């Protein structure tokens, strides 16, 4: 008898606790598909980290939902010559601990980016490394002198969070990286930010608690200079698996979730209590072709590398029915791509024609190129990196096989794929690229030009593509300060890539958010989930 009595006591206690209350109206709980790896805004340039950063910290400038630059801590900025920039700062800003924000904080923050021992390399320091000098004529004006002209400086500075110079011991702060910029104490580490002691920003929220794996709680920063956000408290919960994320929304645990699976959208649609938004992102999914004479995974009857022939590349593009992929595999949570960044973003071709699907013409082109019987290739792709990547790759393989290119798919986990790709082990691979500057130059300079480490061009040109004509136009474009001129040059460069097709664009991924139907969120091209932009219907 005794065991039974003990058990009923246990269940009594449990039944009682299950009645725990639900969140109040001022609170918002958001389920994230990937967790920020640190609170430190300069630790690692990842979308999950940057989205959290935007709640707690501000940069001189910010980007809107379409990745266009907007004023933030700086109200105005002018270009006084190819390498000279002048920024006017707000004078009414205080940090969440009450100390006023001045130009010194900016210089300190930029120095810290250069002196960040614990950071993952290459995070945020590109613009700062290009600084010859930073002067502060007064507390609310900054003059930057760069080594090389950098038309993208505003958007790069929009990504570098400003932290308070109170968090390190220092004398007079000046931009002099050789002598630690005047900092005498220890530079803050990633752990100092994670445990909350120095996570002091000027943003709309302040960190209340950060427990790795379990969640991040934010509380409204009452000293914020901008418009106060609607939610007093915001709680982020990492739920990497899409099924539990949706279940949590449906059971009322979460108010907003990131990236529900597209196949589950009908479940959300069928209910009056929930809705969703699909927002195009700047991430393009594309095929990369290996141009080397001796390519490891392609086999043609005559021993040549067929990808070297532009007719073959165009045939491959024509073989793929992008509409079908978007409709049947992506459940319309994507858009067919006809260039490498969605039209409307800076430097894209406004009225580029759709890339047509014409398998018959594709077969003719293959025959003209000297491969009437096709050839065979192993196609490599990830199966856990992009939305439905394995299924998309399967469809592409089938489309190519249909025109006579015997394609065998080898899909693998990303940790293996990315190592092998940078080891140049593939002949044909599927990748994805999001433009963090919102400009067409992002893809074009990283993937297409002849590799030049010193100039930072073509770092991912694993296929060894080289087109001198393109290189000239691109190099001119990225050094042009005038926006209209630069845009025209980028369009010219983009058109050249589409003509030569060393890369074949497939589609642009869209980002999906689902939320309670009394809320509203417009979504962002950079895929960030910002609690400040989530509003309740009036």
């Amino acid at each position, binding site marked *: 008898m005794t*065991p039974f009595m*003990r*058990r009923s006591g246990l269940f009594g*206690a*449990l039944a*009682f*606790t*299950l009645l*725990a209350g639900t969140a109040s109206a001022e609170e918002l709980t958001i*389920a994230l598909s990937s967790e920020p*790896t*640190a609170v430190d805004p300069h*630790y*690692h*340039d990842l979308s999950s980290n940057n989205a959290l950063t935007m709640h707690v910290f501000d940069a001189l400038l910010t980007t809107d939902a379409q990745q266009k630059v907007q004023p933030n801590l700086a109200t105005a900025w002018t270009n006084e010559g190819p390498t000279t920039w002048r920024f006017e700062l707000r004078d009414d800003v205080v940090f969440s601990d009450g100390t006023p924000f001045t130009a010194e904080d900016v210089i300190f923050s930029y120095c810290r980016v250069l002196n960040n021992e*614990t*950071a*993952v*390399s*290459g*995070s945020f*320091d590109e613009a700062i490394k290009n600084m010859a000098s930073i002067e502060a004529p007064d507390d609310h004006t900054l003059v930057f002198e760069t080594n090389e002209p950098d038309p993208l400086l505003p958007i790069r500075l929009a990504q570098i969070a400003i932290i308070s110079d109170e968090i390190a011991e220092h004398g007079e702060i000046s931009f002099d990286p050789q002598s630690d910029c005047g900092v005498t104490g220890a530079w803050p*580490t*990633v*752990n100092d930010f994670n445990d909350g002691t120095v996570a002091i920003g000027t943003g709309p929220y302040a960190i209340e608690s950060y*427990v*790795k*794996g*379990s*969640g991040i709680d934010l509380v409204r920063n009452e000293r914020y200079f901008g418009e106060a956000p609607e939610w007093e408290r915001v709680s982020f*919960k*990492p*739920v*990497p*698996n899409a*099924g*539990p*994320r949706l*279940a*949590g929304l*449906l*059971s*009322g*645990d979460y108010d907003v979730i990131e990236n529900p699976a597209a196949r589950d959208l009908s479940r959300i649609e069928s209910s009056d209590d929930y809705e969703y938004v699909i927002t195009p992102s700047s991430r393009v999914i594309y095929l990369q072709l290996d141009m080397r004479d001796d390519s490891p995974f392609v086999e043609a009857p005559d021993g040549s590398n067929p990808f070297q022939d532009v007719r073959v590349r165009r045939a491959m593009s024509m073989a793929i029915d992008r509409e079908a992929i978007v409709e049947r595999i992506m459940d319309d949570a994507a858009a067919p791509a006809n260039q490498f960044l969605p039209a409307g973003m800076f430097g894209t071709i406004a009225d580029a024609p759709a890339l047509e699907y014409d398998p018959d013409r594709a077969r003719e082109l293959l025959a003209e190129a000297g491969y009437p019987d096709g050839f065979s290739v192993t196609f490599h792709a990830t199966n*856990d990196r992009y939305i439905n990547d394995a299924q998309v790759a399967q469809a592409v393989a089938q489309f190519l096989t249909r025109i006579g290119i015997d394609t065998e798919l080898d899909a693998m*986990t*990303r*940790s*293996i794929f*990315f*190592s*092998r*790709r*940078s080891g140049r082990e593939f002949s044909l691979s599927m990748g994805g690229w999001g433009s963090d500057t919102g400009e067409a130059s*992002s893809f074009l300079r*990283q993937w297409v030009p002849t590799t030049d*480490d010193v100039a*930072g061009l073509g*770092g*991912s040109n694993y296929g060894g593509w080289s087109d001198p004509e393109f290189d000239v136009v691109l190099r001119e474009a990225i050094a042009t300060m005038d926006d209209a001129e630069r845009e025209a040059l980028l369009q010219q460069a983009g058109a050249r890539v589409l003509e030569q097709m060393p890369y074949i664009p497939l589609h642009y991924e869209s980002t999906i958010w689902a939320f309670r139907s009394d809320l509203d969120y417009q979504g962002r091209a950079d895929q960030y989930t910002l609690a400040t932009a989530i509003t309740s219907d009036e």
Partner: protein
Amino acid sequence: MTLFILRRVIQSVFVLLAVSLVVFFAVYAIGDPVELLVSPDTSAAEREVMIRRLGLDLPIWRQYLVFLGNLAQGDLGTSFVHGVPAVELILQRLPATLELVVLSLVIAVSIGLPLGMIAGLAPETRTARTIMTGSIFGYSLPAFWQGMMLIFVFAVFLNWAPAAGRGDTVSLLGVEVSFLTADGWSHLILPAINLALPNLALVLRLAASGTAEARLQDYVKYARAKGVRRGRIVRRHILRNILVPVVTVIGVEFGSLIAYSTITETVFAWPGMGKLLIDSVYQLDRPVVVAYVMIATFIFVTVNLLVDLAYAMLDPRVELEKGAS
């Protein structure tokens, strides 16, 4: 006894070393963590700096020696991804996993043992057959599906408990625990049941077969002939005798649940150790994976040792020095 423990400790050190070696080289063989960490548009020079800072520029055998050297000073390495000590990351997650595992084993034993004994004492009755048939579901349902069903029934439709995550925590001796808050319990109950079901079935079946066997033994018959009350026979003579296999199973399951309750932790977004392991493998965060497997091995070795000691207490015939090493 002391000699026995000493011998086991020395054996364990070699097991730990062997495990670290295998895991270290296995993760190395998968791929290059820098590729996953550093954005592709990072310059070659910066990439070099990163590689050197992580110590990945050395040949693999030297990396392993460096690892051993640090290990001798009690340092299991710093996470590539999070930039903090691997042990700290793991220990941060340990309380969440421990409370889940302990609760699930308490559920498994407190329900499985009595039900199994009821079934074992009267095997031919309808009650016994119902219990035994029901237990088949316990260990044949896939944990992932079963977890989703629990969520859909109890969280989505009935709305009795939250679907996922860990509830409010309070600090107990410096450790964040959730089993002292109402919200914590409401989050704990579904994943604990999910984790408990297969073990509940296992304990139940062990108890049932053990009881069925023991109740026909001479000492039980003798006790009954002597006029000992039924309750005392069940507790003193039957229960004690069927506990050895149950303790073994609980011991082994305790270790494996702590280290590898990954599926339940994933379905319920439970911030435990299992989920950390999966994430770290995906990101090739070698220091975390190696430290994790070593800590898991350490737990296994310790639990096994405790199980052997428990045998000796439950069954006076077991002698530690000679037999079980």
